[in-house]
């Protein structure tokens, strides 16, 4: 679906944002793109959608060169940016104007998603809605386009607590074998039990790209006694609830992947994690 080969990108001559970045993303999966601020997560999504062009290297999305921005490719991509555009029209007109550009758009689905987000009035003007409500409309629209590639940049920013749960349910119901979802976020807890592939960016490159199954197979996430420590422990975090640890899973024990803990473990001991997954 997405093939990125040795891509270099920078906004200015002096500072390189992405250097020799390579990444392959498959369909039928929800990819979580994580990283600290300024690592280039949003830029990577922009590169995939053809909004910015690589200075070096190649990107292929569904067999197209994104920088050409051909309608065949664009009608199969929906990109929800973190900041939304100012649109002076109501929801009904937004659907009327933009839905025909997406051949697989499903109006019933759109209405259903809006209803789930408790947005009943389609006559509401988009620029009069709150940021969160506007985001809900865009998420609902994006899912209803049924594009093969859905790029979501910080989709849960601005959503209230019940809406985050609704968002997870909708996304989970919207994914199928032909679709590929890339979600860039800082709010790792919002994506808990949703994403099935974790991509971590650090130092302007991909330092980790593994499926949840593989992570659960190789790592053990546990809460243990403060005294308990052994050579399998890669990272531990002392909290009021106990000692949260990421360990090597030598006993093939099943545990739930804690994305935040994994993220911190990677930054604490990148070398060991890399070796473990090689």
């Amino acid at each position: 679906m997405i093939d990125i080969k040795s891509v270099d990108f920078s906004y200015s001559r002096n500072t390189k944002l992405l250097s020799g970045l390579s990444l392959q993303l498959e369909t039928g999966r929800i990819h979580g793109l994580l990283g600290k601020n300024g690592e280039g997560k949003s830029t990577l999504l922009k590169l995939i959608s053809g909004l910015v062009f690589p200075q070096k290297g190649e990107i292929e999305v569904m067999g197209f060169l994104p920088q050409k921005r051909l309608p065949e490719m664009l009608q199969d991509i929906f990109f929800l940016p973190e900041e939304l555009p100012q649109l002076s029209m109501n929801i009904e007109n937004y659907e009327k104007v933009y839905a025909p550009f997406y051949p697989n758009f499903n109006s019933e689905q759109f209405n259903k998603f809006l209803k789930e987000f408790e947005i009943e009035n389609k006559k509401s003007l988009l620029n009069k809605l709150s940021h969160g409500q506007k985001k809900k409309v865009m998420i609902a629209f994006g899912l209803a386009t049924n594009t093969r590639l859905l790029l979501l940049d910080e989709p849960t920013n601005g959503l209230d607590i019940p809406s985050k749960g609704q968002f997870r349910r909708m996304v989970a119901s919207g994914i199928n074998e032909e679709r590929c979802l890339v979600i860039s976020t800082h709010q790792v807890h919002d994506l808990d039990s949703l994403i099935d592939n974790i991509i971590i960016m650090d130092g302007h490159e991909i330092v980790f790209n593994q499926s949840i199954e593989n992570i659960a197979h190789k790592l053990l996430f546990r809460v243990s006694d403060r005294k308990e420590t052994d050579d399998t422990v890669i990272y531990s975090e002392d909290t009021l609830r106990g000692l949260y640890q990421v360990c090597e899973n030598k006993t093939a024990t099943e545990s739930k992947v804690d994305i935040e803990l994994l993220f911190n473990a990677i930054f604490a001991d990148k070398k060991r994690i890399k070796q473990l997954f090689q």
Partner: protein
Amino acid sequence: MNTTFSFNRLVLMLKRFFIENRNKEIMSWGILILVFTLVHNSANAKILLYIMGFIFAAKQFKSFAYTPGGMHYLLIPSTHLEKLVTSILLSTVYFFTMFILTYSIGNVIGTNLYNLVFTQSTQVTWDFFNATDIQKFGGSFDFLPGGNAFLEMIVNFLIIQSTFMLGSIYFKRGALGKTMLSILAFYFVIGLIELFLLKVIFVDLTTLRGMNSFSFMTESSSILKIIGNGFKIFCYLLIPYFWTVTYFRLTEKQV
């Protein structure tokens, strides 16, 4: 699927403009009718055409002023050519038609109201379309044979439109002001070059001052005619040239 140009997608792009800007358009054209009602039978409508024309053209790619707006625009599934043609159609055919329509409505309403209030019987005049009108914008460029002022006005308008549309995509913010400044800077440089060349040719500037009232273009010399026609062709070519540059600028646009 047509990868270069689809009429359906062009219609969708136009529909998008009209739905998104319906209220603004109704309001601005309504105000213009009011203006033409107040200043009916005016021969100076073409000045307003040029001013409004470059404002309208400079707003064609205003979505790029705000990054999410630019992203949203570039990701609309239509080709760059369709996006460009939409902007050209809107800032030429649509704008010009609406201008003429509002001028005509305002003129008729204004004249009739004037007659009603002041019990006069003034006729509606259509100076705007007057082919014998020799008033020309920006000097005395005789672009078209036969001196058809209306057609000449359209050519002038298209040159202005294409220049400001290019400015609209070239400058991220304040396209209108920056394009105007660029044009002024361009003319300033041309003026300096002209002055330099004349000084080189005539050496003494007093000779040059003495020639102020002398027009080279009134001479019937064939060389001057060739130069004049060459200049006309150059001006015509500016229109497609600026549109082409706008197209390439759009294809290379990154947000």
